[in-house]
């Protein structure tokens, strides 16, 4: 059935007023004791904002965090990316950032054991590891001089992603937390890439024995996925989309609350704007009550 609704004003969405907002060109402080962080620059011995956002002060470091920006990673960040192209002993990975990231051949796990050294044959068969279009999870290892980052998948929790689908969110909405690999009780795993790519998949149980035999690291096929599992995956995808549409931070607890609240509806009903808003509101009030 086709649903048509009248257009609504953008201002209908509530945004809480922020007090410490600065806009580009605004002077933050004249005190030279402060060091400048992201989003600021010095002019005539004054610290001036270069983006619009909230001021953050950490000891002597002053920075401005803009509301929206492309992913600016730090070492150790968990990201989800898509292979864009194959290069010389490396892959270029799209992470929705300022530049494509690099995954070096020397930074991945090779089948046949951890200790195996890479040889000529590996380079030729790079495509059998990661081909163009493949999705993967990885960690930021280092930065190059021009600002691009280098990734690695040297731990078993990282690697090729399958059995699920991708949801795209602005990177600013992903909350930094201890773990970005979430297992929900409904049998759905979520990988919250800090760059805004979120992978929702069927739960995969990795036993300790499997970790020592990485033959199956680069399988290109999905396992059997039942109808219930698909419904659960689509439910979680729609919940995350709802959070994105309403500009809410995305993290484990809010997803869990919203999931429980949404069980009385069909996954497809979760696409409606009104239902999304009411689910988010109730989850937020649950969170506030829990504090």
């Amino acid at each position, binding site marked *: 059935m086709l649903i048509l609704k009248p257009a609504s004003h*953008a201002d209908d969405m509530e*945004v809480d007023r922020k007090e410490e*907002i600065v*806009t*580009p*060109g605004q002077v933050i402080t004249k005190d030279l004791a402060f060091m400048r962080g992201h*989003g600021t*620059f010095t*002019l005539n011995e004054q610290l*001036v904002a*270069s*983006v*619009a*956002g909230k001021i953050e002060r950490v000891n002597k470091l002053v920075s401005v965090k*803009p*509301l*929206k*920006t*492309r992913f600016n990673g730090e070492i150790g960040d968990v990201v989800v990316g898509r292979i864009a192209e194959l290069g010389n002993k490396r892959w270029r990975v799209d992470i929705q950032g*300022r*530049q*494509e990231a690099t995954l070096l051949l020397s930074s991945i796990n090779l089948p046949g054991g951890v200790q195996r050294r890479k040889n000529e044959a590996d380079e030729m068969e790079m495509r059998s590891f990661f081909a163009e279009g493949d999705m993967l999870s990885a960690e930021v290892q280092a930065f190059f*001089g*021009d*600002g*691009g980052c280098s990734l690695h998948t040297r731990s078993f929790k990282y690697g090729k992603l399958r059995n699920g689908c991708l949801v795209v969110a602005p990177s*600013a909405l992903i909350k930094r937390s201890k773990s970005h690999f979430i297992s929900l009780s409904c049998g759905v795993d979520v990988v919250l890439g800090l760059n805004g790519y979120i992978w929702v998949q069927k739960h995969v149980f990795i036993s300790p024995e499997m970790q020592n035999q990485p033959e199956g690291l680069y399988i290109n096929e999905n396992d059997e996925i039942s109808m219930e599992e698909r419904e659960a995956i689509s439910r979680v995808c729609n919940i995350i989309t709802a959070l994105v549409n309403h500009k809410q931070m995305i993290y484990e607890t809010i997803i869990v609350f919203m999931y429980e609240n949404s069980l009385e509806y069909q996954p497809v009903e979760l696409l409606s704007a009104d239902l999304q808003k009411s689910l988010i509101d109730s989850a937020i009030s649950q969170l506030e009550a829990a504090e």
Partner: protein
Amino acid sequence: MSRLELITPEGLRVDGRRPKETRRIYSRTDLLAADGSSYIEMGNTKLITTVYGPKESKNNNSNSIINVEFHLASFASGSTAKKLRNDKKLMENSIAIRDIFESVLIKSFGRSEIDVFIQVLQSDGGVLAAAINGTCLALIDAGIPITDYVTACTAGYCNEQAILDLNYIEESSEVPCLTVALTPKNEKILLMNMEHRLHLDNFDSVLSLAKTGCQTIYESLDECIRK
């Protein structure tokens, strides 16, 4: 055809404004799924600006560069003249906008580029000025660091007075029209175009009026961003 009276004896212009009044400005950001976007209305001139970037540059540039594309919808202008894709005037506008914003951009990214697309939905005078204001908002919405806002406004001279923010009727008559863009903090001028003839004596008053106009617009844009 009788000559339109641009300013009545009571001091009102064609659309009822006073000489030094700008048109009603409405602006908002974040309307499309792009890195940054803005919608701006200056009177009846309406346009959407979208910004993509900073993103991977296919050319090997060491500095950030901005690519600007200007699109004028066929239904945008008053006449039904066929829209020329490669209209030189639109290209000139694109180059102007690129130069303006590359100078306020803080060069901290390597090998990346920023794409700016301006889509004019309705044109009723002051299109370049509105495009500059829209681009400024969209860049800020995208979180791209710049040293200051850039606001722009048009001003002209008619019947012995300087007038602010010309609409299409005023622009298409033989009134001299000055478009000015500046950074509000230090009032440095980044762009200045003028059409038709203006006596040097009157130039100052027109220019200072344009500068005031820019400041007014700056306040309005700033308010919009803060929301």
